[in-house]
């Protein structure tokens, strides 16, 4: 497809479990972002990759959260020891950085921690 693809679209897990969320950006987009949107809130920045490296991970809430982008394309957001407060929609976006702030978002992965 031409857009940003995220899998799974829905994930239900139990507290304490490990979760991986995958993002496949638009082909050729060098910049990749993860945001988190909780109910009634706007998207909240988590991490930004330029190529393979995390250029800014200041939004990751704690060390249970980790993200990788080993080949500069697909990215995986990893959450260890999930907590109920981690329940949210996790949005991935990519961009060419041609226009500042213009991101192309995927549909998101809805995570529910029971």
């Amino acid at each position, binding site marked *: 497809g031409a857009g940003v693809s995220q899998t799974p679209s829905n994930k239900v897990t139990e507290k304490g479990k490990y979760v991986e969320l995958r993002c496949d950006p638009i082909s050729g987009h060098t910049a990749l972002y993860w945001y988190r949107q909780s109910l009634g809130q*706007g*998207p909240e920045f988590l991490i930004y990759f330029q190529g393979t490296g995390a250029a800014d991970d200041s939004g990751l809430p704690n060390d249970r959260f980790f993200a990788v982008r080993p080949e500069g394309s697909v990215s995986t957001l990893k959450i260890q020891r999930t907590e109920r407060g981690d329940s949210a929609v996790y949005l991935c976006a990519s961009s060419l950085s041609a226009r*500042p702030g213009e*991101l192309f978002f995927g549909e998101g992965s809805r995570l529910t921690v029971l």
Partner: protein
Amino acid sequence: DQQVKQNSPSLSVQEGRISILNCDYTNSMFDYFLWYKKYPAEGPTFLISISSIKDKNEDGRFTVFLNKSAKHLSLHIVPSQPGDSAVYFCAALPQGGSEKLVFGKGTKLTVNP
């Protein structure tokens, strides 16, 4: 502490009339301001942006106005159409090359036929 505030959770307008969505910000160190639109079960999509050195940007039915002294921006949609019904997010990009968009909580716009 919310740096970007959208104080109206919802707005309802009649088809053909003007929709005005408002956004306030507290930090003077933003370079760009943007509006994103979001339909249910979809990701946000970029709508329009404005540089901090400008006070107006227009794209078809959409116009964004920036008032730096008031730290306020607004999105005007005219004429409004039922397909414009969505949640609109105001966002800001900090100075200094940061890629960290700061979003407001959103305003749900309903355009009634």
